[in-house]
């Protein structure tokens, strides 16, 4: 039962305005991101998981986590697709706003992301089907440099930033120990208790 209070007790420490992100340039050096990608990924991560009463993705250095995952863990194919997709997304930004990606505002990135993610359920389903294929299969079916291939690469990039943002955020120490319900050594098992006794989801 004491664990049920864990979140309630921890929560006040999170209600902090210190965490409101104002896109201060971070000092970390990317290992994988090229050119403007650090800035773009930071904008996207901040839009996907913005700071609220609880810290946001940028507060927890999620863009750096994504960079590291691509530098050291992702497959070579995934790295290649991320690079190409990132370039195309940047190009899309420049075409839409007629300015350098590094000077884009959060509002502009939000507006651009909406054009990709705020689409009908049916269109979303089609995209998820498309992204299941290898790039070569998409090229074979729709042609090199086709619109489909371009969409494939941009969505792969955006969905990866989204996935890694969630992954890094919800498995971070801050969220895992202080926001979600943390219980490293439960000691007992209870198969059916009111959710209200626990509060937020278990982190482990």
């Amino acid at each position, binding site marked *: 039962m004491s664990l049920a209070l864990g979140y309630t007790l921890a929560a006040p420490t999170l209600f902090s305005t210190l965490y409101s992100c104002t896109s201060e340039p971070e000092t970390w050096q990317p290992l994988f991101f090229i050119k403007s990608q650090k800035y773009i990924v930071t904008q996207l991560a901040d839009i996907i998981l913005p700071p609220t009463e609880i810290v946001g993705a940028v507060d927890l250095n999620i863009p750096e986590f994504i960079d590291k995952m691509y530098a050291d863990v*992702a497959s070579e194919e995934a790295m290649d697709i991320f690079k190409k997709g990132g370039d195309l997304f940047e190009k899309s930004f420049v075409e839409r706003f007629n300015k350098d990606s590094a000077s884009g505002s959060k509002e502009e990135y939000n507006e651009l992301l909406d054009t990709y993610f705020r689409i009908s359920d049916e269109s979303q389903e089609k995209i998820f089907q498309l992204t299941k294929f290898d790039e070569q299969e998409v090229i074979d079916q729709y042609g090199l440099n086709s619109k489909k291939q371009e969409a494939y690469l941009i969505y792969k990039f955006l969905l990866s930033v989204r996935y890694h943002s969630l992954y890094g955020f919800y498995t971070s120490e801050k969220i895992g120990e202080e926001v979600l319900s943390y219980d490293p050594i439960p000691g007992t098992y209870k198969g*059916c208790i*009111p959710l209200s006794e626990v509060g937020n*989801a278990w982190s482990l």
Partner: protein
Amino acid sequence: MADNNSAEEKQNFDVIVIGTGVTGGWAAKELCENGLNTLVLERGRMVEHITDYPTMYDDPWDYEFKGELKREEAKNQLKQARTGYTIKEPSKHWFVDDLKHPYNETKRFDWIRGYHVGGKSLMWARMSFRWSEMDFEANLKDGHGVDWPIRYQDLVPWYEKVEKFVGISGKSEGLSQLPDSIFTPPMELNCVEKDFQDGITQNFDDRMVIHGRVANLTGDESREGRSNCQYRNRCIRGCPFGGYFSSNSSTLPAAKRTGNMTLRPNSIVHEIIYDEEQKLAIGVRVIDTITHENLEFYAKIIFCCAGTMPTTGILLKSKSKRFPNGLGNDSGELGHNIMDHHFKVGATAISENHEEDYYKGRKPTGFFVPRFRNLDNKKEMNFVRGYGMQGGASRTDWRRAVGEMSYGKELKEKLLKPGEWEIGINCFGECLPYHENKVTLNNEKLDEWGLPTLTFDVEYKENEKLMREDAEKQAVAMLEAAGFKNVKGYQEPCFPGNGIHEMGTARMGRDPKTSVLNENNQIHAVPNVYVTDGACMASSASQNPSLTYMTLTARAANHAAKQFKENKFKNI
């Protein structure tokens, strides 16, 4: 071969046990407790209980990459990673380096293993079920494989002995096809698992949902050096509480307490020495992986507990004038009849109930549906034998949102709450013994010690395929009947080995012409060599096999100790 044993190292023992996994541990314990001077050889490194479990307390955020491996590092364990769950930071050190320990695949075979004291007993899934009369009679009744030389009743006292020591959580049900063990209290079903149980009871006469039976301690009994399961569900890392059974937590400490055990890690046994005059084995040849010395150790009895495939490799390599095709291989069956359990077939669904319910603790098991097809070996289906179902229910976490395009504050807050209830069923099916499913020695491709590597030629066949069709349909039908929503059947490719229940390569039998071992796990023509790991199995049944391996080992070890005391093996 030159004997390079250093002068001070004692070379003669009553018995040598090869391997330290679930069966090696049991052989060591029983033989030592019978007063035999026992040498236990392990090819891998030492692993001390608790002290050598480096990841036992780690959380995902303790790892820079959340437990995933770096790209370059992952290349060393591509075959061990074929399970999808083994090669992560918390457990990767329990699995071999595939570049150092290569094998060959005529057909894909997922040979997943660990070389260290404790073997797979450290990483096993701990599901523990007795076999039944039906299982031991199956070969005789339907004509596949050879008849088991033993029956269920032969094992009952030994199951009891093993279960009392191991500690198996579960609930008695009185089923003939899945006899009850001696249980410690069951781990309760959660709300949705209970709904499933009720739904099946109401809608089917021929099947039921029971508690998982698992070698994790519950209840009030104490066992030396161990405490109850703490519901962390991190068993694969090694448990600081000794909450589950492993050689390291249980049998090896028991063997050590007798003062009769010499445990020697870093010792690769590659050959059993056969004496043509005595017609008995007299010892083993060993490579010390630290000093690179070639050594010999002698004993009156040899126990092969290296794991199905390593044991088979040792026997195949142990050639002599009497046994030109491998020790005890008069029948030509050594290396043949490989079986595993096929799985990765079943169904998933969601529950729309219990939105306001949750659970506390991470249960290291779920529910089980005992076999309900072709009971008592009646041929009711277009396949013989049957399958059991393993599964569980839980609420989803943040990953439920991966296949979406939502973002922002609302998403962020939603994912702090548990998601919907999911329930999943995975069917584990019996595999028939096919002579042509085999492992052979490859003398062209040698390992780093100059020893031959193994080549696998194994496949599932028509009976397994037909069983899988039925398993998927039944899993779907059961989830639907129980009222779950969004029921989806699945059937994924499943390759032999992936169940990590590989067995059958030195089978027991009544006839030396068609089997390798007799009813006491002795090689027919070399009675002082016992094989009690998975190699001994004449059929696979559908239950997880470790409990039966341990039981056969305890029985054989006590048989051997009796023979020893009666001075039946008069070598040396």
